[in-house]
């Protein structure tokens, strides 16, 4: 292991002993191939076992290790120390979410919103299993594939000042997933999702800052999904207004 070290300034919040978060600096060995999560694991294993944070897959798939690294929402398994060395690194919990302990945030609000947009295939009438799968062509899959890459890491919520100011906002990931299922050729749940997505707490809260798409580690582009939903719902509203006899 190299002799070089790097300082990691970590947010600590232990509700049983303090009312507000504090900071603690740990000096950890610097390895060029280490990511921020490796440094946190080193702290946990060798310096301070009381530090709490979430992680799982270490390969940018599970979406659990999202934190603020030097003020930017990042997956800590994909943020390399070499990009910050030799400067001290600041690691904080994801912005805009209530902090439960240290770097662990409460994501119940997001889970409720995710459930509200019903991110699953809705059918007006389910066909019997014996009749087989709902088939889809590659072209139909291509329509929504980009928006199905979301790993619910919540970096987009941490980057969204609208959510930070008004946490009633349904938010980028949930709205992108709503759009994803609306685009799915097998789905028939547009009307049910639109009740939530096009509500005053849905797409119309978004002011298109666009930072959600900038920080997305999977290039989902939730900002585009939200703006396209705005165009789509507006067009449908005009159609229903001008041609009330037509089907939406």
């Amino acid at each position, binding site marked *: 292991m190299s002799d070089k070290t790097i300082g990691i300034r970590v947010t600590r919040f232990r509700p049983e002993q303090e009312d*507000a978060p504090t900071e603690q600096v740990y000096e950890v060995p610097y390895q060029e191939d280490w990511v921020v999560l490796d440094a946190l694991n080193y702290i946990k294993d060798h310096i301070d076992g009381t530090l709490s944070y979430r992680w799982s897959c270490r390969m940018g798939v599970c979406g659990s290790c999202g934190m603020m690294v030097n003020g930017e929402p990042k997956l800590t398994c994909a943020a390399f120390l070499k990009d910050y060395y030799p400067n001290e690194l600041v690691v904080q919990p994801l912005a805009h979410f209530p902090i*439960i302990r240290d770097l662990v945030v409460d994501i119940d609000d997001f889970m409720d919103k995710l459930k509200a947009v019903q991110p699953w295939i809705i059918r007006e009438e389910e066909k019997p299993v014996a009749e087989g799968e709902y088939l889809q062509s590659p072209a139909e899959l291509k329509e929504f594939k980009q928006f199905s890459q979301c790993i619910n890491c919540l970096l987009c919520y941490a980057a969204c000042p609208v959510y*930070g100011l008004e946490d009633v906002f349904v938010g980028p990931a949930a709205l992108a997933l709503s759009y994803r299922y609306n685009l799915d050729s097998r789905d028939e749940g547009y009307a049910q999702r639109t009740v939530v997505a096009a509500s005053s707490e849905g797409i119309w809260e978004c002011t298109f800052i*666009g*930072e959600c798409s900038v920080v997305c580690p999977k290039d989902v*582009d939730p900002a585009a999904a939200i703006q*396209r939903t705005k165009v789509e719902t507006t067009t449908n509203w005009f159609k229903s207004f001008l041609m009330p006899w037509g089907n939406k």
Partner: protein
Amino acid sequence: MSQSYETYKPKLSPTWWLKSRNYFLFMMRELSSVFIAAFVILFLYQLFALAEGKEAYAACRDELTTPGFVVFYAVAFVFALYHTITWLGVMGRVQVVRMGAFTVPPKLVTAGAFVGFFFVSAVVGYIFLYVL
């Protein structure tokens, strides 16, 4: 969902938009609408003056060509241009254009929006400079 544990909810600072270049540029885009709204009000004022007759319109023009208003118009023009460029720049991401089974690439949609903007601007400019 009910929670049975204490949490700490951080508050967003009023200066959040100064903490990142992208947030700052977003706020400038929002601010541009104030200048555009002011420009529209002044434009309506000119139309009312025009309806009042030649003398009223001449007085209005004299008023609006004082240095203060010239500076305002210059700043409003920069903001209007910035708003237009950022608005047209995201066109390809926002508007999906389909031609049968073919989906027009987003970059082409954006390029088309800019071409349309320059064409319309040129036509309007020509009419104002050479026709009216």
